[in-house]
């Protein structure tokens, strides 16, 4: 009897020491700072990342769904847990207590199960499906003047292909590919391709809808913009469109969410949301093509 009590006390002590002291201390230790110096906009921590989509669009439904689900889960778990702990205490084996094998009518649990099922149905039909339909089907129309671009993934880089001022993408083919100077393989003979922009940072104007066609050159990647709740696998052989809109300027991160090889972890790109004017200036400059390289000055 005594040894049992000691084990219980010791366990509680370890639990308190571990979960109460050691781990919070560790949790404050964020010494391994990232190795690059890009200031991200917004507040990141143990909560959902900032959401820079306009109110009423699907990224906010995603957030509210996550919120509601977690409140629901906590309520369910706590209610369930109270019953669980009550049973453990009340019906522990002891002198003068005997089990009662008479069948129990557990009406409450049946009702609870029905309520849970109805609530799940509501979340599914009321929130999830409309949001998904918005992701998949409610693409901005041409009147809304969306920005079109292509996202081409490769090991281990995101390439962004803008059509340039003429609004038409040049033909691409692996035959023209050059990793240093023509990473997308744009046909040099195609006049539409002359002003195409190849970038490794995603520049988008603020408050304007964007349609991006996601594809991959080699393996499966996943195009993820955390702050816009966008995640779409980039699958070779397919070109899958996504749409999004940002209403806050700043620097944000784009990540690869699908294991794509040894450097998957560093397949990161910057998303720069800027005012239309700034964006236009960048767009015009980038469409001119790369600058000439002055050997005498720079090469060694």
């Amino acid at each position, binding site marked *: 009897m005594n040894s049992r009590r000691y084990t219980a006390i010791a366990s509680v002590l370890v639990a308190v020491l571990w979960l109460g002291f050691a781990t919070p201390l560790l949790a404050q*230790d964020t010494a391994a700072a990232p190795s690059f110096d890009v200031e991200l906009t917004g507040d990141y921590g143990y909560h959902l990342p900032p959401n820079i989509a306009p109110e009423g669009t699907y990224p906010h439904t995603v957030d509210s769904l996550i919120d509601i689900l977690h409140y629901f*889960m906590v309520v369910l*778990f706590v209610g369930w847990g109270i019953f669980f702990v009550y049973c453990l205490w009340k*019906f522990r084996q002891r002198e003068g207590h005997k*089990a009662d094998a008479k069948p129990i009518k557990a009406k409450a649990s049946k009702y609870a199960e029905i309520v849970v099922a109805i609530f799940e149905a509501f979340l599914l039909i009321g929130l999830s499906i409309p949001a998904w339909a918005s992701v998949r089907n409610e693409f901005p129309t041409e009147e809304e003047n969306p920005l079109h671009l292509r996202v081409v993934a490769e090991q281990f880089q995101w390439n962004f292909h803008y059509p340039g001022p003429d609004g038409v993408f040049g033909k691409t083919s692996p035959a023209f590919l050059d990793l240093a100077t023509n990473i997308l393989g744009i046909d040099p003979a195609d006049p539409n391709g002359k002003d195409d922009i190849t970038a490794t940072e995603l520049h988008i104007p603020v408050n304007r809808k964007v349609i991006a066609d996601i594809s991959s050159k080699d393996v499966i990647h996943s195009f993820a913009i955390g702050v816009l709740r966008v995640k779409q696998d980039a699958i070779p052989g397919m070109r899958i469109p996504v749409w999004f809109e940002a209403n806050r300027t700043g620097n944000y991160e784009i990540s690869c969410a699908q294991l794509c090889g040894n450097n998957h972890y560093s397949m990161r790109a910057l998303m720069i949301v800027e005012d239309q004017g700034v964006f236009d200036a960048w767009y015009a400059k980038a469409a001119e093509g790369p600058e000439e390289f002055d050997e005498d000055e720079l090469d060694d």
Partner: protein
Amino acid sequence: MSHDEHHELSFIRKYVFSIDHKVIGIQYGITALCFLFFGFCLMMLMRWQLAYPGQELPVLGKLLGEEFFPGGVMTPDFYNSLGVMHGTIMIFLGVVPLLVGAFGNYVMPLQIGAPDMSFPKLNMASYWIYLCGGCVMLASFFVPGGAANSGWTAYPPLSVTATTGQTWWIIGMVFLITSSLLGSVNFIVTIVQLRAKGLTMFRLPFFVWSQLVTAFLLLLAFPPLEAAGVLQLADRVLGTSFFLPEGLVISGQQLVQGAVPSGGGNPILWQHLFWFLAHPEVYVLILPAMGIVGEIIANNTRKPLWGYRPIVYSSIFLGFMSFIVWAHHMFITGMGTSLSMFFATTTMIISIPSVVILTALVISLYKGSIRFNVPMLFALSFLPMFAIGGLTGLPLGLPASDIHLHDTYYVIGHFHYVVAPGTIFAIFAGVYYWFPKVTGRRMSEGLGKIHFWLSLIGMNGAFMPMFFVGIAGMLRRGYDPAAYAANENLLGMVKMSSWSVWMLGVAQLPFILNFFMSIVAGKKVSANPWEATTLEWSAPSPPPHGNFEAVPVVYRGPYEYSTDDRKDDFFPQHLQAEA
């Protein structure tokens, strides 16, 4: 079968190439426990890199060699290999063989009053094929480029273009799948054919039911993966393009398969074939665990399992539904609204039988007389842990919330709650519970309790933080979480998780000690130390070849505890009621 007892078998036939289900069960058990621990060690290595990215691994870093640890720092390739091998070893070489191969093999024939499995030689073949598969997996660490490093899901084209380790992985998987198929056929036939007289289907212990449903899942879900594995092998070595689309450019060069450019295949096809196995696989991992927990709860509450029939029906329904939910792993491949709606709906539906089983197990506690011995502690903690695992499946099953949570640590937290403090706790519960049957001795309660409490703390310390960092957007399978500026504030939580994992590792030492010491020095106990009702406890401990001294006859349901005014509060299935 009983005439076999008269033959004096050689040592090798008796203990190595044995066809006795009990010996095979023990072989499975020991092998799988070793693999489980090995798989866990791989994770402890990975957690170093996550907690202290790019820092030299103390002591071990130098020992593990320049190939994978240049300057004592783990390479990303090796990190990815560890990830694949951790997943594969834990699931296919650890947990499933323990649940099905060890407990299923040892306990199930005893519980149905059979002298052995229907096909003892098939049973032996199943174990040896499994061991071959395991050896191939382990050997793959030593091939050029190391073990497979394309994720345990092995998505092509990455897996097709990966290093040689991937070929070994596929071959290993083909062995493991074959082994499971042989086992599942054997289980189904045994349960259907070899039940003792009077043991009707609805007098079967829930554990046997869970094994039956699991066997059907294995039988029906594994062949597609085996076929897919062979196709991927062909893509890798024969130059076919089953999973390779047109125009692949790898490292700036067009991919040539054999002599012709790749093309004509579809990488998504693999995902469908893979998840068609891998979702039922989740229920392969959880159903027998529920079976074990059910047995132990009934025994230690000293009252019948509440809602035996609903539980059985739920597990059958669960098994059936598990075949039509697989694509909820693939929402973000670009799935359309109607298809995603279908899979989200089936996913919500499948949560209902799980809730029914869990609720039934909790209600079984009500008005019981609960004994808190070590198996019961593990079985009880299975309930809230599995509940957390199950609940956190909801946001992943709804396509909209999955957009944000997909491929984050939230997913890792979710399925580890199901499998680690869930299933693995059930496994520990089973080990402590049936140990006296296997050895005739009991494991130490004191060491068992230390093992339990430390494991409980370690498990929660390791997996709870994953939900927080997952919601914050930290992606899984990242070699260096510090590569993203957005993760900067999360690194502390990652560290906490790592330390908890290492503590969990230390927490297994009392178990290992307890396990081996008890084999030789454990307290000797009677044939039925837990005062249980099911048939395995009517056989001597350990049961002889052929299991029962007299062929058992069954007179009643599996959990007749405290049901009448007998002197004992339990009424074993094989005892005839006094006139």
